[in-house]
């Protein structure tokens, strides 16, 4: 019986249990629902849960455990000669046995017997059936494969029987429990609570897992390159060509990348914050509802544009435009038509990333500003303040903690942005302060280091994890600081 059929059967049993539980509770109620502690639906669900949940859990555990057991028992009957070679060879043999086992099922009895007495070649026979073998195949594999197949079949039957039995037993046990005063409702709610907890812990555990894997890979990197060299090095030169040859391992200085990241994020925020904030104030305080209801979604559309599209925009429009206009300006002033802004530069990336961030700033700030109680607005207007005075002196101070939080959130987005920077700022890791020259960021270098065909053992690729964890710490720090600011001001303002 296949797993999906088995699952279907369990669900079917669950269904039947549900109605059985309902019917039994109704029968016990004697036609008066208020006799029951819980509504019939709860009794039904209770029985269904008992039928489905234990069976499903056992099924899941079985599906994980059984193949392991079958593998190890198959491994045990492989010939001495194979077993003594250990590790990889055994696994290879086991893999072959499994493909032979798959192939054996397709053979007729005649073909099988000719294989067993050695008159037919294993590899070619199976190839004719569409099963490709990696090696020539040896006679012991046929016995091992037959053992494997036999165990698989027994396993299937055993699993189906046990799981179905558990489902039926669970349902029966639960049905016996049903009584008028039985608290089915509380039981069902406890199961629901449990599933909520499981769901939230999955999210948290995944995060922990990601961080842990990054940490362990970064740890491997730091055994090859000293942390001091990484965190305080001022030269980024990973020497891809030298990868794997040992000795010359390149220089992995974080500082130029970090400087580029922060510089570009700073320029982006310089563009996005005033524009976004002003837009938010206009939307929240001055715009008529009709204008607001059209303009705000339009502004938010900007947030939905994939960042790679902004990258194109930077590459083909903004970058060349800045380059040409700088050449013209230079020509007008000095007579020398030499551009002083490179097509790929910090400003290009900063401006385009700034445009990308405007809707974040404005949308978040707008929500925060409109949340300022109307009473405060009325109070200020009632004292004869103009709208602008009200905004400056009452609304913005009241909304400040939220706005600061929004800005820090935006900043951590700017720090983590990749696609725009790849296309707009270039990949040259340099340390300089001229905003018209190219620079690069941590994220770009992560992409760079991982898109090659190097194995994950050289510092050239492992450095990506060290960079990743650094970036993670930076954005985590920003977010924690945002929370801290918000808390601090909230104490003062509420």
């Amino acid at each position, binding site marked *: 019986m296949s797993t999906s059929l088995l699952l279907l059967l369990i669900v079917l049993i669950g269904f039947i249990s549900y109605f059985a539980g309902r019917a039994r509770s109704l029968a016990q109620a004697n036609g008066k629902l208020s006799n029951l502690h819980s509504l019939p639906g709860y009794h039904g669900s209770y029985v269904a849960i008992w039928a489905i949940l234990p069976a499903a859990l056992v099924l899941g555990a079985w599906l994980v455990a059984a193949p392991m057991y079958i593998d190890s028992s198959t491994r045990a009957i492989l010939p001495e000669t194979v077993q003594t070679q250990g590790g990889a060879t055994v696994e290879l043999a086991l893999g072959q046995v499994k493909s032979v086992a798959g192939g054996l099922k397709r053979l007729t009895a005649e073909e099988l017997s000719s294989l067993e007495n050695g008159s037919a070649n294993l590899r070619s026979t199976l190839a004719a059936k569409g099963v490709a073998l990696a090696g020539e195949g040896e006679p012991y594999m046929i016995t091992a494969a037959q053992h494997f197949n036999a165990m698989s079949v027994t396993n299937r039957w055993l699993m189906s029987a046990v799981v179905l039995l558990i489902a039926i037993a669970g349902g029966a046990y639960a049905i016996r429990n049903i009584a008028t005063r039985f608290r089915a409702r509380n039981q069902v709610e406890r199961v629901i609570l449990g599933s909520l907890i499981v769901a939230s812990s999955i999210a948290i555990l995944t995060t922990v897992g990601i961080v842990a894997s990054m940490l362990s890979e970064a740890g491997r990197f730091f055994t090859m390159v000293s942390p001091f060299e990484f965190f305080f090095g001022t030269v980024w030169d990973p020497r891809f060509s030298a990868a794997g040859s040992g000795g010359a391992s390149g220089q992995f200085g974080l500082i130029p990348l970090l400087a580029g990241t922060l510089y570009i994020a700073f320029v982006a925020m310089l563009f996005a914050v005033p524009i976004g904030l002003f837009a938010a104030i206009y939307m929240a305080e001055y715009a008529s509802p009709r204008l607001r209801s059209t303009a705000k979604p339009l502004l938010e559309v900007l947030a939905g544009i994939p960042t790679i599209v902004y990258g194109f925009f930077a590459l083909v429009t903004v970058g060349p435009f800045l380059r040409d206009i700088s050449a013209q300006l230079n020509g007008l002033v000095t007579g020398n038509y030499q551009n002083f802004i490179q097509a790929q530069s910090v400003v290009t990336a900063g401006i385009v990333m700034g445009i990308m961030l405007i809707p974040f700033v404005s949308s978040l700030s707008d929500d925060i500003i409109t949340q300022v109680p109307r*009473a405060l*607005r*009325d*109070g200020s207007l*009632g*004292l004869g303040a103009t709208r602008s005075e009200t905004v400056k002196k009452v609304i913005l101070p009241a909304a400040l903690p939220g706005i600061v939080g929004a800005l820090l959130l935006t900043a951590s987005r700017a720090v983590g942005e990749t696609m725009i920077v790849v296309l707009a700022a270039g990949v040259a890791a340099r340390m300089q302060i001229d905003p018209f020259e190219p620079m690069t960021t941590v994220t770009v270098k992560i992409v760079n280091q991982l898109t090659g065909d190097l194995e994950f053992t050289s510092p050239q690729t492992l450095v990506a994890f060290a960079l990743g964890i650094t970036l993670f710490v930076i954005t985590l720090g920003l977010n924690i600081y945002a929370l801290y600011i918000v808390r601090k001001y909230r104490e003062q303002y509420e």
Partner: protein
Amino acid sequence: MNIMSEAAVEKALDQKMNTVPYKMIGKDVSVYYGDKRALFDVNLNIRENTVTALIGPSGCGKSTFLRTLNRMNDTIENCRVTGKITLDEDDIYDPAIDVVELRARVGMVFQKPNPFPKSIYDNVAYGPRIHGLARTKADFDEVVETSLQKAGLFNEVKDRLHEPGTGLSGGQQQRLCIARAVAVSPEVILMDEPCSALDPIATAKVEELIHELRTNFTIVIVTHSMQQAARVSQRTAMFHLGNLVEENDTDKMFTNPDDQRTQDYIMGRFG
């Protein structure tokens, strides 16, 4: 203060009520929210240095009328006011009138205490600051102190003027809002159910304060409490379904009203 003499003064004032000049005159005032008409040709005059109470069941238009007096209805979308309202002969809906100046002359205290998220000092200094009523620090200190004193709050907060106004109790917050309104030296103060969010003790303090403020200001108060109207006001106006039912001396309103509806409302037959 001698209670007898206070009562005597009040009686004298009440008897002269019909000779007190009008501070604000409302003529045929109608208010529309979009297509819905909320006030129907209300003719109501507000006498100088008098507490005028506006009473009536919920939704009767009393708050709407109050908000027309300093054009707070301007901040509501789709709200339209017709008719004429004057403040000392100036038509307040005249386009030549600056609404900001009008609101400095006609201050407002709201239903829920709404101190700004600033210090007590800055709350009171807010109005004087935006209207340029004071210049030096000493001027501001004085304005803040006298306003808080007028609001009967100074002694309670004088040691913590620079702590946030939001940290005060509800009653103190409402008196802070009154001090804030007083600091601008308005001629009229509008109060929209100023005690509805306060406990009885805080309410008593605010009522006492309203009583004292009458010497310097003209006060219009919207209230749901009959007792409060009787306690604090000299004139009472009764609204019903957007119409002004009756306006009269408070004593007469509560003892011998002209209109049956007023009688019923005061007796608690509807509302």
